[in-house]
């Protein structure tokens, strides 16, 4: 009969305890940067925050005051434009992917979505540049909105697809059995049922798009003044942070932190709300009537 030696037993137990403890330490370490970043952004950014920060235009170096009004408007315009373009395409394609997962088009669609979501945002920027800016010989808010829509489409497709899949088959089949054409079924039956999920997807997509700076470098290009003309270059929040942070001026660094505080608050709020919605929704999964 094989008997385990006391030493071996002790060894196994110690290794076990050590490794499990290490895993715990690692998970704390993984969470630490988030808290660290948030802490810094809040600490460095709050001094510069004031009501005027949101309503004024940027001032030249050395001149106190000034704000990010143009960037706020710019971000709203570009992201808004992006959503307008991306939402119909993303939602419709997502519905298609969920309803026809096994057709060649469905498979190709999923493949294509994966590819697009993996494209680095700067490459997207180049693409939009060659497609729009170059022929027009002009940086513009429109090009910024378009590149954001490219980035948002895969997110919308994926969340729509997941949400539609959650809609019980009985609901779908019921409508189809009544003779409704497929696209009509989609609109009147499935979408309302999955609406909650679509909103979630939109929020996540917006949060992502609002934070993108790299593509803006070659499309929207930034603008020190307020601009409401979509055919002109326009400032956006992340781009502004980049410019301020890369500068050698101390007070611009402070403005970068403040802008970052605004941006990160917005993005995190959207993300947390979206995830809470998902969690709440999957808890009440029976209530789709």
């Amino acid at each position: 009969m094989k008997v385990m030696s006391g030493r071996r037993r002790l060894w196994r137990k110690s290794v076990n305890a050590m490794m499990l403890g290490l895993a715990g330490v690692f998970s704390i370490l993984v969470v630490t940067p988030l808290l660290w970043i948030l802490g810094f952004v809040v600490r460095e950014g709050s001094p510069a925050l004031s009501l005027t920060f949101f309503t004024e235009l940027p001032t030249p170096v050395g001149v106190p005051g000034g704000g990010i009004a143009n960037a706020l408007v710019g971000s709203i315009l570009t992201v808004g434009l992006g959503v307008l373009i991306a939402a119909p395409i993303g939602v419709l394609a997502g519905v298609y992917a969920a309803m026809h997962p096994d057709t060649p088009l469905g498979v190709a669609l999923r493949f294509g979505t994966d590819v697009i979501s993996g494209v680095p945002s700067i490459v997207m920027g180049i693409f939009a540049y060659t497609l729009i800016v170059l022929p027009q010989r002009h940086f513009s808010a429109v090009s910024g909105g378009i590149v954001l829509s490219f980035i948002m489409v895969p997110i919308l497709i994926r969340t729509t697809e997941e949400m539609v899949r959650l809609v019980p088959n009985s609901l779908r089949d019921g409508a189809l059995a009544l003779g409704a054409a497929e696209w009509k079924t989609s609109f009147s039956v499935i979408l309302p049922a999955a609406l909650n999920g679509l909103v979630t997807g939109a929020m996540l997509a917006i949060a992502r798009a609002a934070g993108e700076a790299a593509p803006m470098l070659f499309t929207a290009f930034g603008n020190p003044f307020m601009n409401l003309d979509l055919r002109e270059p326009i400032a956006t929040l992340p781009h502004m942070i980049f410019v301020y942070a890369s500068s050698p001026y101390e007070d611009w660094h402070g403005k970068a932190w403040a802008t970052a505080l605004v941006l990160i608050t917005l993005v995190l709020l959207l993300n947390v709300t979206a995830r809470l919605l998902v969690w709440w929704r999957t808890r009440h999964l029976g209530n789709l009537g």
Partner: protein
Amino acid sequence: MDIPAPVDVRPRVAQIGDGTVPVKTEARDLSVFYRDFKAITQVNLPVYAQKITAIIGPSGCGKSTLLRAFNRMNDLVRGSRVEGQLYLDGQPLYDSQVDVVDVRRRIGMVFQRANPFPKSIYDNVAFGPRLYGVGGGSTLDALVEKSLRQAALWDEVKDKLHQSGLSLSGGQQQRLCIARAIAVEPEVILMDEPASALDPISTLRIEELMHDIAKDYTIIIVTHNMQQAARVSDFTGMMMIDDHRAGRLIEFDQTQVIFTNPKDKRTEDYVTGRFG
């Protein structure tokens, strides 16, 4: 209607034929709770050494819970707790001094659905011994071969030890799991409906091998197949759900007695197929 107390079988040895057989492991007043729900209540079950003990009863009566109490697998369920005690060779198993890892080595388990690791056949069987420091080379090879022979699988796999365990048929996979359990040289083997997912021929092979290995190990088998219990076991315990939805051991005796002359009417109804 109140259920009468279970048949009390307290003596530590049983008179069987002209010899006495010691108790290897036993449950005393054992109750298992999942949070507030009492799954089994006040079970007193002696398990005699080198004998096969079957636990039968209708679905949901707590047979598996009782079985899993022996190797403390219920511990894995959050919120589970135990009242009463389980003994192995007279030593309590539910005790703060006890090393669970060691309990599980001495009391092995075979599950309802075969669950081999996605490793080679050899590595599946060698997994346990390697944990205990059995080095590679001839010692390990010999141990693997011995375990596979005892599980009646050696001849079928000796030429393909390095193929994946998942490449075997269902019945073969289950015998692989038995070999894997045997490889750590346990004293007791728990079997949770080991053949219920298998075809009749595989089932018979497993029953045969149970007979062959019974002389070296103490076996407790849970089964919903009464004929199997009658074929295979030396002792049988009958469980049922009481009014509070907790499982109870209502009768325990030598298998022959249970199936030909049970003392409890409910047992008689069950084994004659009148219900359940």
